[in-house]
């Protein structure tokens, strides 16, 4: 791996190496820029470092303290927050879906949210680039949206939870498909196909998972990028003219400063605004890139409620990737809804402590909990990924508490809006129909889970109403960029990782073009 001296001003210092930062580090290095990618977490070697154990693998999560409040306080940590080189993709469920084209202009075309400053046809090309880079396994023909080519690798065999959902959908005449998923269904290089050990969300120990760690980052190193792990960036520095000069970071017990011509913030929707706000200075007293006042605002999760039940048959929900069957029906159908936005839902495999806590959240303990868990192998579920609306009151701010580095921790405030609640009600009813039609009984709703986080540094066409432009470049500071889920103006009704990676690929192409014109 290349190594740069702190004193050498690199072309790009990228803070965060997940779906946004890791992808961008690869593409920029391949375009010939000097790149250092910083990550607060370690650079794991999954074959040697990952155990087959839920409790042990919590080492993959961001477990520094954060404070949550609002009417619907979020669950962070294992739920949505990674602390590893490769970011949350090290423990993501690999679901790789494209946006519905209209979502890029949801304000103009569908009447809600905010328009993206990018065109879906351009994004369609970048989606294809990412799907090929990850060898996404999926169906030959996708049932929704404009034409797309067959997925690079064939779809996976369905596990029992996916078969249950497929049965339910078939019985109701609801379209479904094997989920496009970023784990290998055939060999690739030295990696063998997925062995269906079912522990995707605690880290894949066989490297079948096509995370940023196993796809973009090996390419980044090959192209000359440096990935500096266990390096916590505390503050972005600027000169008297207001141009960024580099980043302060903590590594090996000491504070250091890396000089850089450009800094990209890619810490995901909590750490990105936290770093921008923690970098406030006399020139930028409200934090960097914050003349709009929008840094930290419009935090969007996705509603992630579920319907669970029991089946007579053996389901054994620990086998295979968790979400192998999918319906996007309610993303593409606009009639029959009393809410804006869309949602998909997926079959849901589940590991023991996760399911036990689902039961605990509905109030079970003592003998009723033990008995419910004794039916683990007959448990089946479907889970929602629902589009939540942007609201300025849902936001990341700085708390008074400080972390081990002496930095103010994030306070994350979240409340569902009325539209979000109507969607959840609608989705729970639809999922119940499917579960009942699948033959599951004794159904119960998991009512309070969320997934993913986006939107705290939104992109747009108006500097007064957005933090970055379509190129992910800060309006206020020309050599400061944000490239992760934070830039989403809306979140859509699908898992965001494919779109984050597609935006990173587009950003790299734009940076290359701007550099060629001398406009960096």
């Amino acid at each position, binding site marked *: 791996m290349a190594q740069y001296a702190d004193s050498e001003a690199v072309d790009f210092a990228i803070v965060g190496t997940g779906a946004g930062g890791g992808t961008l580090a690869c593409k920029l290095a391949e375009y010939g820029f000097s790149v250092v990618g910083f990550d607060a977490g370690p650079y794991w070697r999954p074959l*040697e*470092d*990952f*155990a*087959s*154990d*839920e*409790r*042990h693998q919590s080492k993959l999560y*961001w*477990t*520094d*303290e*954060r*404070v*949550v*409040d609002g009417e619907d*306080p*979020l*669950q*962070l*940590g*294992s739920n949505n*927050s990674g602390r590893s080189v490769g970011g949350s993709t090290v423990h993501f469920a690999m679901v790789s879906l494209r946006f519905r084209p209209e979502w890029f202009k949801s304000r103009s075309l569908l009447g809600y949210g905010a328009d993206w400053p990018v065109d879906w046809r351009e994004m369609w090309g970048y989606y294809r680039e990412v799907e090929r880079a990850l060898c996404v396994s999926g169906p030959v023909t996708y049932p929704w949206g404009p034409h797309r080519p067959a997925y690079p690798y064939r779809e996976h065999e*369905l*596990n*029992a939870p996916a*078969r249950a959902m497929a049965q339910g959908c078939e019985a109701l005449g609801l379209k479904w498909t094997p989920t496009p998923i970023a784990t290998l269904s055939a060999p690739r290089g030295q990696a063998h196909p997925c*062995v*269906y*050990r*079912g*522990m995707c969300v605690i880290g894949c*120990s*066989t490297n079948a998972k096509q995370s940023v760690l196993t796809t973009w980052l090996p390419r980044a190193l090959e192209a000359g990028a440096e990935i500096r792990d266990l390096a916590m960036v505390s503050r972005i520095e600027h000169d008297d003219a207001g141009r960024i000069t580099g980043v302060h970071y903590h590594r090996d017990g000491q504070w250091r400063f890396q000089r850089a011509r450009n800094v990209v913030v890619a810490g995901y929707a909590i750490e990105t605004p936290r770093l921008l706000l923690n970098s406030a200075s006399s020139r930028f007293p409200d934090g960097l890139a914050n003349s709009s006042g929008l840094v930290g605002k419009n935090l969007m999760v996705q509603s992630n409620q579920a319907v669970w039940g029991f*089946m007579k*048959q*053996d*389901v*054994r929900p*620990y*086998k*295979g990737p968790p979400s192998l069957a999918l319906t996007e029906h309610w993303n593409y159908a606009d009639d029959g809804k009393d809410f804006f936005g869309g949602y998909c839902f997926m079959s849901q495999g589940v590991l*023991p*402590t996760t*399911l*036990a*806590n689902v039961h*605990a*959240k509905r109030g079970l*303990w*003592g003998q009723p*909990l*033990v*008995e419910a*868990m*004794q039916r*683990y*192998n007959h448990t089946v579920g479907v889970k929602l990924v629902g589009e939540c609306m942007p609201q300025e009151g849902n936001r990341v701010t700085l708390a008074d508490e400080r972390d081990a580095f002496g930095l103010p921790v994030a*306070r994350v405030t979240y409340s569902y809006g009325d539209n979000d609640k109507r969607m959840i009600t609608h989705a729970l009813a639809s999922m119940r129909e499917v579960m009942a039609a699948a033959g599951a009984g004794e159904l119960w709703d998991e009512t309070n889970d969320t997934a993913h986080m986006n939107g705290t540094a939104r992109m747009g066409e108006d500097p007064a109403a957005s933090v970055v432009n379509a190129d992910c470049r800060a309006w206020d500071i020309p050599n400061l960029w944000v490239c992760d889920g934070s830039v989403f103006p809306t979140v859509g009704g699908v898992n965001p990782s494919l779109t984050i990676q597609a935006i990173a690929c587009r950003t790299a192409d734009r940076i290359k073009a701007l550099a060629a014109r001398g406009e960096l």
Partner: protein
Amino acid sequence: MGDRYPGYDVLSKRHSPSWNDQTRRVIDQRLAIDPDAHRFLNELEWRTLKAICSRIIPQPTARERPAPLAAMIDERLVKGASDGYRNASLPPLREAWRRGIAALEAEAQTRHGRGFAELEGAAQDGLLTAAQRGLAAHPAWDGMPPDLFFADRLLFDIVSAYYAHPHAWNEIGFGGPADPRGYVRLAFDRRDPWEAAEARSGNEASARRENAHVGRR
């Protein structure tokens, strides 16, 4: 309820292709936890916590070495590690447990004139239910919402500890560690020979026979 997976012992797979070295190390450490070790909690807190754990997760009395839930919690408290988030109405992990245990003990003394650990199971359940429903009101809670402590801290930590223990995996028929070997048979009612066999009416003996072999497959 009888044993659903008679004779199934996930640890018998320890030397099978379903376990690798790093998993063996992790599980060995968990099994080596001294059930009486408490470095964070004092004697009274420890007795109360043990009593709480046995109400939240009643383990079979026949179990020679029950899953050491209280010791697993104490170990976590020694480390002091966060989950990565905390409701703004709750204090940090250590303070929340200290205050929550003290409050349940105080509730027991006030309502029953005895310590929590000395009460009958039904009385203990009554106090836990009151906390769960937010009805506990002793000043010892000191502003910490009892329902939030119960859901986010007490229940979450104890349940997470138990279902991380091989005893629980045996009880629910979980395949356990699965690396490098995963699974082949994914459909309904299909079981790989290295998975637990479930006893259904009339086939208890054959399930027991199958389960005796899971570690040799």
